[in-house]
């Protein structure tokens, strides 16, 4: 008896829908853990710190000279976003969320509940990655949107209405939110891998942070081997290069986004390979 092409398609489809069902079930179990718990205090702090800074700026009685023009406000946000939010908040926030997706369960001795489920380990990795992604996007895209609104708040409701309804405000908002989401996708995948391959993720995370920080001083081809280069390339307001910076052409979003997603998939596959070899050794008899 031969199997027809449509049988293969049906089988593949039912398998995919079963895996999707399992991914959703894993995400449902993980959601609570991703948003509640003492371990998340640092993540809340990282997400709310830039918001708190801009709340102070918004409510503090500044005279118009100190406040600057709305155009300067766009630059204020670009500096806050590209130096603080991207390189600090999202970097460390993703490190905390994603390196702990498996490590925390090993430490709490609960990973066997998943490993003894009839779920492929690759599916488990995807489910956990997406649960981390939902949490990080909620924290940091939310923080980015709040920051952008707060930067323009001191200029009054009328200006904000014009800027967001008729000006470039909405486009900036969507672009910055997308860049923040891309940062979560990229750093999330990298830190998932780091959490699986290293017992102590601080050292590789420190090296990665160092690389990302000195990136602007490196030759062009080395600048392109970093997450932050592609993220900054997508930002609508470029930062002025410092006196020591080596100017590199920004990479087009048409190249950045697919490349970013492709790289993320490769990193997740590498994580899945490691999880396939994972053994539960958190106890002996």
């Amino acid at each position: 008896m031969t199997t027809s092409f449509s049988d293969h398609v049906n089988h593949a489809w039912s398998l995919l829908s079963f895996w999707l069902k399992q991914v959703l079930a894993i995400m449902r179990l993980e959601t609570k853990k991703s948003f509640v718990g003492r371990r998340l205090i640092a993540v809340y702090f990282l997400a709310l710190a830039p918001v708190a800074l801009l709340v102070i700026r918004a409510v503090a009685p500044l005279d118009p000279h100190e406040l600057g023009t709305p155009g300067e406000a766009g630059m204020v946000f670009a500096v806050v976003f590209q130096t603080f939010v991207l390189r600090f908040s999202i970097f460390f926030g993703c490190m905390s969320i994603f390196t702990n997706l498996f490590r925390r369960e090993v430490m709490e001795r609960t990973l066997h509940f998943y490993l003894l489920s009839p779920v492929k380990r690759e599916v488990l990795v995807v489910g956990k990655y997406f649960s981390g992604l939902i949490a990080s996007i909620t924290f940091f895209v939310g923080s980015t949107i709040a920051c952008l609104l707060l930067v323009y708040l001191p200029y009054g409701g009328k200006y904000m209405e014009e800027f967001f309804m008729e000006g470039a405000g909405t486009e900036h908002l969507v672009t910055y939110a997308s860049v923040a989401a891309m940062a979560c996708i990229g750093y999330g995948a990298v830190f998932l891998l780091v959490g699986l391959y290293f017992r102590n993720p601080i050292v590789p995370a420190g090296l990665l942070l160092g690389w990302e920080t000195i990136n602007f001083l490196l030759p062009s081809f080395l600048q392109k081997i970093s997450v932050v280069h592609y993220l900054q390339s997508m930002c609508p307001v470029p930062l002025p290069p410092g006196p020591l910076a080596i100017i590199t052409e920004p990479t087009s979003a048409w190249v950045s986004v697919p490349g970013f997603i492709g790289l993320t998939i490769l990193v997740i596959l590498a994580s899945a390979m490691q999880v396939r070899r994972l053994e539960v050794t958190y106890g002996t008899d």
Partner: protein
Amino acid sequence: MTDEDRIVLDNVSKFYGEVLGVNRVCLSIPPGITSLVGPNGAGKTTLLNLICGLLQPTKGSVRVLGLTVDDPDLMYSKLGYCSQFDAFPKGLTGLELIYGYLRVYGYGDQEAQKMAWSALETVNLTDAANRKVQAYSKGMRQRVKLAQAISHRPQILILDEPLNGLDPMARAEVIALFQKLAADGAHVLISSHILHEVDMISDRVILINNGYVVAEGNIHGVRDEMEEHPMQIMVRCDRPAAVAAKAFEQDHAVEVKVHEDGQGLMIRTRNADQFYLMLNRIVLDCNLTVEAVSPADDDVYSVYQYLIGTDGGRL
């Protein structure tokens, strides 16, 4: 019975670096209740984790009902595991724990709800279903672990110290559950320190010490094979001296002690079957009144003492 009905370990070794976990283990475990007995650090949990696929063998292979961990979808839908660790994902109620993992298994909402409640009912935990697991007592946590392990109705149930923390009533209920599952054709593999309960419920035992399986099989069969340890048999009768005299005429009798009350004796013999035949003859020839005859060291505890002893470590 084929390998498709058994848990088969073929020359399995597991080393943690240079530390031995288990070494050259060959087992073929049929359905029924099998107990894994050994002192602390003997390799019991390592062996259970190897069977479950939580550990990969350094050498050899493990097949569970003909399946390996390379087919997790098939293997884990047939296997339930109750670990010794008193740890649960944080923030979940008993119901959420069981329901949540059933959803991961691929069951739909309604079915998972139904199966979760059924599992909780089996372990008498429905009243506490909506309470956080962290707020459970030790015995309740043990029961919710068990409920989670049986919730998908597995053919193989692996239980690491399942009786720990249970009160006598709960213990009796849980043991009855194991017996029911085994009677329905399941494999129930138990690691336990409570030897008299192991003795009571097990169809067979696996004795493990220092990473090696030192004996396995039906406990009476294991005891019979231990020829270097003469069998102790207790006889309660009206004329023990007559039995003792006859026994010493036989070359298989090693030692006879008459009880202080003069109403019985304890005999150590290298051939229990010959002793029973001899006892039958005495009963017929001398009109002996026998109240009771029972082996005194034909249980897990004695076998454990002989094979592992107190040097083997604390139970």
